[in-house]
């Protein structure tokens, strides 16, 4: 680790869980879902992430269990590879390099060595031209294999995996695109094309959106833009095909799935209601409403116990077959726009940002899990196009996290602005925030910034909040005790209103010790004394609208930094009240590290964003990272690490105590990592026991319980005999042997001796003879039965040559002798003792 490791930009979780249909393991114990470049394995019972399968270098677009081995998983990605995983252990088994961008992946139980993928059309750059091809997977022992044997199945189809489905036993494949349904029959090698008219007189919109095939019958279900579902039958006839229509959805049908036996069809869409249609009948339908947001994908588990829906708000809901929600796996909720920016909750170190509409989400980046949702707006969200919703726009935490300030707004027209500021107090007892004060219209115009004064550590300091508004004012709010004799209550009220030439206030921030407040008004930065609220000084050069403003920290607390919209980064010295230095840099985001003097600035050039990390006392940045991403960086935040990391490289020392996260325009949350790829890709040490993955069917429960009881009874009878088996199981060698996947084990001949050794009973444990004796004694009854069996076999063997017969009679003789012996032994000789 002495060698300089390059700083790499990595996706750091929070990536989309709903990119592709999720898959269940055969026993429905695990849910597998594509998440960014990874495949995540979740436990359906605990909602915990068990494994992360890492290896793809681009978005994973499709996952499917290996039909030949249900412990294995295929995944395909835009990076052009198909990977085969052992998902119970999180091990990559094989990589097949196809060489085209793969958009969807299908396997069939019938075809062992070939799989189906959707790839872009050859030699064509047009974005909407795709083809379904079958890929022959070569059978070679190598880890990485080139799979170049492609054969075209269907041409000119849709890109989405939802638009293609394989029918009963792989007899046919159906694909929809635009207004056409294509069905390709593998046996006859024939394509049937069924067109629909674009619109009808009744205003139908017949464009196809998705397709699903009945697993047992020849029936294709297709979803349409106007919310209709059509069930196609008889489609092997060009003319005499027929369809029936199911209609409940009022908007686009997003996905369709049949249950395992095909008795029910599931559909979902923007209504966020899962509809279950029984027997393909319009009249027999059941609903699971209020699932939160638009259903994007639906899948059913192979054993029929669960369904799962993935939603646009990055959520996967696992649903019992009786349509009750069993578990929810919530990822980072990504709306269209993060208005609140990235904020850190000082208490939990969680990332806080806009969640569901009107909610604030607390997201733990270490575990890549949502901690909780705080309903800020507290209004029912109604999905309707063109409806203006109340939006959460600003969030700020006090230094210790005991206060939370939120601003929500709703803008019906230009002139009508509804603003509301809410202050929340952290309640230790309920471990959540409770609403303390609600302030209607804190400013006449948009609130541009708000910040708390970090006075929590000071005993006397009252909590203070400053808001800046476009109406040219900044307001200071303080917590006042307005409790009377009956009721103790604390509330926030306005303490001071400041303005500067009625310019709109754009930014505000407190110095580290809370003694100074800097507020920027258009091109001017004003500095105020926070005790008396007097204007101390102003900075206004170089000219340019102030976009970001922050104070230096720790040893650099005498500096104030600001960026302007004409591309300058300025650093003012507060002692001399003069410009210390300025640099020409088009800074988009300026973010100070709360634990050090470091300040990160992300600048944007014509294309690509660059990161600069510097200390305010030096105009020269100590870390420059060019081209961290192609898009514009919207927000960045330093999140303190729980344990400071030791980083060898001097240059990357700034990452040791806190981690810099940033959010791009495309809502990708990225971070920096100094670790090499190999390090990140080491398989997780978690091991799963083999027997755990046997399916727990009701049948098993019934029989298995009985057997278990029997066994335990036997064990009780056997008493010490159990010791032997325990012994064997306890041995680490056997454990290792049994619990390690077969393909990573050394050869059997090598293991044999270890295995045999482990089975032997060590002498010092107990006298072996005693144990064996007792075993025989108690299992006598069983042996009697087997004797009968033996006799039967003897009868059959009578025809055999006599030499065999002799042998058998010999054994029989010995048996009878043995029996006699045993009988004698069992006799009660206690009377001897009495003598």
């Amino acid at each position, binding site marked *: 680790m002495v060698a300089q490791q390059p700083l790499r930009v990595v996706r750091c979780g929070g990536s989309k869980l709903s990119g592709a249909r999720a898959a269940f393991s055969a026993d429905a114990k695990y849910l597998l879902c594509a998440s960014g470049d990874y495949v995540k394995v979740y436990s359906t019972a605990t909602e915990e992430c068990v494994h992360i399968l890492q290896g793809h270098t681009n978005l994973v677009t499709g996952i499917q269990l290996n039909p030949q081995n249900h412990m294995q998983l295929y995944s395909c990605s835009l990076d052009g590879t198909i990977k085969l995983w052992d998902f119970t252990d999180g091990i990559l088994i094989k990589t097949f390099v196809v060489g085209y961008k793969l958009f969807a992946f299908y396997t069939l139980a019938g075809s062992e060595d070939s799989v189906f993928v959707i790839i872009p059309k050859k030699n064509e750059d047009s974005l909407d031209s795709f083809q379904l091809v079958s890929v022959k997977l070569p059978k070679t022992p190598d880890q990485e294999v080139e799979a170049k044997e492609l054969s075209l199945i269907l041409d000119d189809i849709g890109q989405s995996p939802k638009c293609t489905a394989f029918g009963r036993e792989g007899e046919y494949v159906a694909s929809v695109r635009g207004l056409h349904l294509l069905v390709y029959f593998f046996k006859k090698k024939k394509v049937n094309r069924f067109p629909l008219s674009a619109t009808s007189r009744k205003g139908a919109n017949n464009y196809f959106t998705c397709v699903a095939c009945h697993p*047992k019958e*020849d029936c294709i279900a297709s979803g349409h833009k106007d919310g209709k579902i059509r069930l196609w039958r*008889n489609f092997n006839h060009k*003319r*005499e095909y027929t369809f*029936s229509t199911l209609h409940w959805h009022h908007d686009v049908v997003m996905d369709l799935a049949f249950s395992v036996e095909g008795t029910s069809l599931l559909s979902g869409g923007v209504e966020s209601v899962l509809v279950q249609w029984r027997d393909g*009948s319009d009249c027999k339908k059941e609903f699971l409403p209020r699932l939160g947001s638009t259903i994007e994908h639906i899948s059913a588990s192979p054993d029929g116990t669960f369904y799962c829906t993935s939603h646009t708000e990055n959520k996967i809901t696992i649903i019992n077959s009786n349509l009750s929600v069993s578990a929810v796996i919530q990822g980072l909720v990504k709306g269209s726009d993060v208005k609140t920016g990235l904020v850190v909750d000082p208490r939990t170190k969680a990332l806080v940002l806009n969640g569901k509409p009107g909610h604030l989400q607390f997201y733990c980046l270490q575990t890549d899990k949502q901690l909780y949702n705080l309903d800020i707006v507290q209004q029912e969200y109604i999905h309707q196009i063109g409806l203006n919703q109340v939006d959460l726009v600003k969030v700020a935490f006090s230094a210790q996290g005991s206060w939370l300030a939120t601003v929500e707004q709703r803008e019906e027209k230009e002139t009508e602005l509804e603003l509301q500021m809410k202050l929340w107090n952290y309640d230790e007892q309920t471990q959540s925030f409770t609403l303390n004060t609600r302030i209607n219209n804190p400013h006449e115009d948009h609130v541009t910034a708000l910040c708390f004064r970090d006075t929590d550590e000071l005993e006397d300091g009252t909590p203070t909040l400053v808001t800046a508004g476009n109406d040219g004012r900044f307001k200071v709010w303080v917590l006042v005790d307005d409790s009377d004799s009956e009721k103790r209550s604390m509330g926030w009220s306005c303490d001071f209103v400041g303005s500067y030439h009625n310019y709109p206030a754009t930014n505000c921030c407190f110095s580290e010790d809370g003694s100074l407040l800097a507020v920027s008004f258009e091109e001017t930065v004003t500095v105020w004394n926070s005790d008396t609220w007097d204007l101390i000084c102003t900075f206004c050069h170089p000219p340019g609208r102030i976009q970001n403003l922050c104070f230096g920290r720790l040893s650099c607390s005498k500096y104030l930094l600001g960026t302007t919209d004409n591309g300058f980064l300025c650093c003012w010295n507060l002692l001399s009240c003069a410009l210390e230095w300025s640099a020409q840099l088009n800074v988009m985001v300026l973010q100070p590290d709360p634990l050090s003097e470091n300040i990160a600035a992300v600048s944007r050039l014509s294309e690509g964003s660059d990161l600069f990390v510097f200390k305010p006392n030096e105009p020269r940045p100590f870390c420059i990272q060019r081209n961290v991403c192609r898009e514009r960086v919207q927000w960045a935040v330093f999140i303190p690490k729980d344990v400071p990391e030791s980083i060898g490289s001097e240059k990357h020392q700034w990452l040791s105590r806190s981690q810099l996260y940033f959010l791009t325009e495309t809502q990708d949350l990225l971070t920096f990592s100094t670790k090499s790829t190999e390090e990140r890709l080491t398989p997780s040490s978690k091991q799963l026991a083999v027997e755990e993955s046997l399916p727990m069917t009701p049948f098993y429960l019934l029989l298995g319980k009985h057997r278990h009881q029997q066994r335990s009874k036997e064990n009780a009878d056997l008493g010490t005999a159990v010791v032997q088996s325990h012994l064997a199981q306890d041995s680490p060698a056997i454990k290792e042997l049994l619990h390690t996947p077969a393909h990573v084990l050394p050869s059997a001949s090598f293991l044999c001796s270890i295995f045999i050794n482990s089975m032997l009973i060590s002498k010092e444990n107990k006298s072996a003879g005693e144990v064996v004796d007792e075993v025989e004694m108690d299992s006598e009854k069983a042996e009697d039965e087997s004797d009968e069996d033996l006799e039967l076999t003897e009868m059959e063997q009578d025809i055999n040559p006599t030499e065999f017969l002799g042998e058998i009679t010999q054994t029989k003789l010995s048996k009878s002798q043995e029996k006699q012996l045993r009988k004698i032994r069992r006799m009660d000789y206690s009377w001897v003792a009495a003598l």
Partner: protein
Amino acid sequence: MGEFQVHRVRFFAYVPAGIRCVAHSPRSARLALARTDGALEVYNFAANYFQEKGIPGHETRSTEALCWTAGDRLFGAGLGGDISEYDLEKLRVKYSLDGFGGPIWSMAADPSGTQLAVGCEDGSVKLFQVLPDKIQFERSLDRQKGRVMSLSWHPSGTRIAVGSIDLLRVFDVKSGHAIQRILVDRRLQGLYSRECVVWSVAFLSNGTIVSSDSVGKVQFWDSEKGTLLETHPVSSSAVLCLAVSEEEDSIVVGTSEGAVYQFQLLPVKWGSAESKWVRTKPFQHHTHDVRAVAHSATALISGGLDAQLVIRPLMEKVHGKGYDAALRKFTFPHRRLVSCAKKAGLLLFQFPQHLELWRLGATNSAGKDGDILPVSRAPEHLLQLKSKGPEHICCSCISLCGSWIAYSTASRLHLHRVHLENGSVSVKRVSKVPKLLCSAHQLLCSADSTSLFVASDQGAVHVLKLLEPGGCGHLQTLRPNSGSTEAVYLLAASADGDWLAAAGGDWEINVYSLRHFKPHCTVPAYNCAVTALAIHPVTNNLVITHSDQQVFEFSIPDREYTTWSRKVQQHGLHKGWLERDMPITHIAFNPKQPTHILLHDTHMFCILDKSLPLPDDATPLMNQTSLKQLSEKARRGHAHAFKICKKYQGLGQ
């Protein structure tokens, strides 16, 4: 100045009666249809769904069930308790027989066509034997409680499935015992209804019984075990009727919400014998209850209380675009209900039980082409003539001068002399109408109003002399040489009074010379129904339209098709013209333009200009609006013989 003055007649308030039941005969490809007023119509599928025959209604007759036996005999039964056979040649009821079981709700013929099963109000199922010239009561099956709403024979003829209130029964025909009694659930998805009327049943050859009931479900039962196989909730209201295709792979049901659904027997997997019934296509063409459905080989046919007969082709069964592929909706009869006295400006409207005489409005101003002229005299209702007796009017006519009105019911011909004297109207009935005329199927006055032509049975046309001041006498009876048995239903007389053309039910057109009162010639036979006839006033050419949309012109003096007609046949008519779904019901001529023939059907009005070239399939048939935008010169180049107007607003243009 426009070419015509167009009267907009909005005072003919004819309300067609609702359709009560239909019966489809696959063998003769005909559909019999009974309306709520007792009228019966027969549509011929082979002749492009033309309404071939009509039997006028009767006040006391209400037909609840119709059935064909042996392909061409038609029986009807109704709530009057009578079973009647219809005479389709003479277009009247042949005989009636009391079923002695109270009102009859259902009737079905056995597969061999030798027996009729009748379901009665008193709960009995009676069997009648079909003899060559009558039917005879044979026996009654075991009488059970509850009226018999529906019944269906098993294709083997040994079992009958009977639908009653809350119950389904299966009878063994031989023993007459009920061998199965199945209770039908009154409930559908938790909703209870007071009773469950099994409106319709069908017995399939594999022993499955299909039932539709008032709760709104279609159910499939195993007749051997009496168990329910499948339930399909179709509607929240009653499912009134169902029909099975001949191959038994498709069922059509009609609901009281006006929707029609198709069920198809589809294989669950290819190549496996297992198949199931799937509700596939919903159609909503009716506004009211669908009381009757039928399933032909290529189409679903439904008739409702909104008086519409809808023929919805099954696109997968018809090949190519053509007559069969069009959706047809018949509301009005394919018969003439309006007659016009050209000289007097009078219109006679025919209603089932009365006639109305109106005087057309008039204007004294003139305008440009397309102008709406102010009405100086509003149209005037002059007379309402009620027919006596329970029988409905089957045809009527007014003479060109407006002084004679004739109408006929099934049993009587009535003749009236009308006197119009400066505003006052008086009617005098002609009492002594010759008795030999038992019924008339079509009436026509000669151009000079001196004789009345009465179309009658067996191809005969009676000529009556109209005598002033109010009398008549039988002059002659014209009979065709061929000895046809079918009734004449279309007549056309020449303006000069020399010729009379008559078309009968066997589609034969005879031309008679009125000078000699003998057959002049017969138009060469054409294998399709005649929908309209007219003789040109100048050239004496007979113009004939057929239900397959062909137009012929036959020169009576030369006894051959005219050269124009031959040219039309050689060239072929435009595809768009041939694919129209309605028959031409009327032909007229423009006296100023001898080359023009005026044609119309329910949806369009067409001026056929013989002087212009015939259109090719490539040129659009309806080009009137596009022609209007062209210059005068270009218009002449693009014009073709068919000038079609679908919007009656601008008909005169």
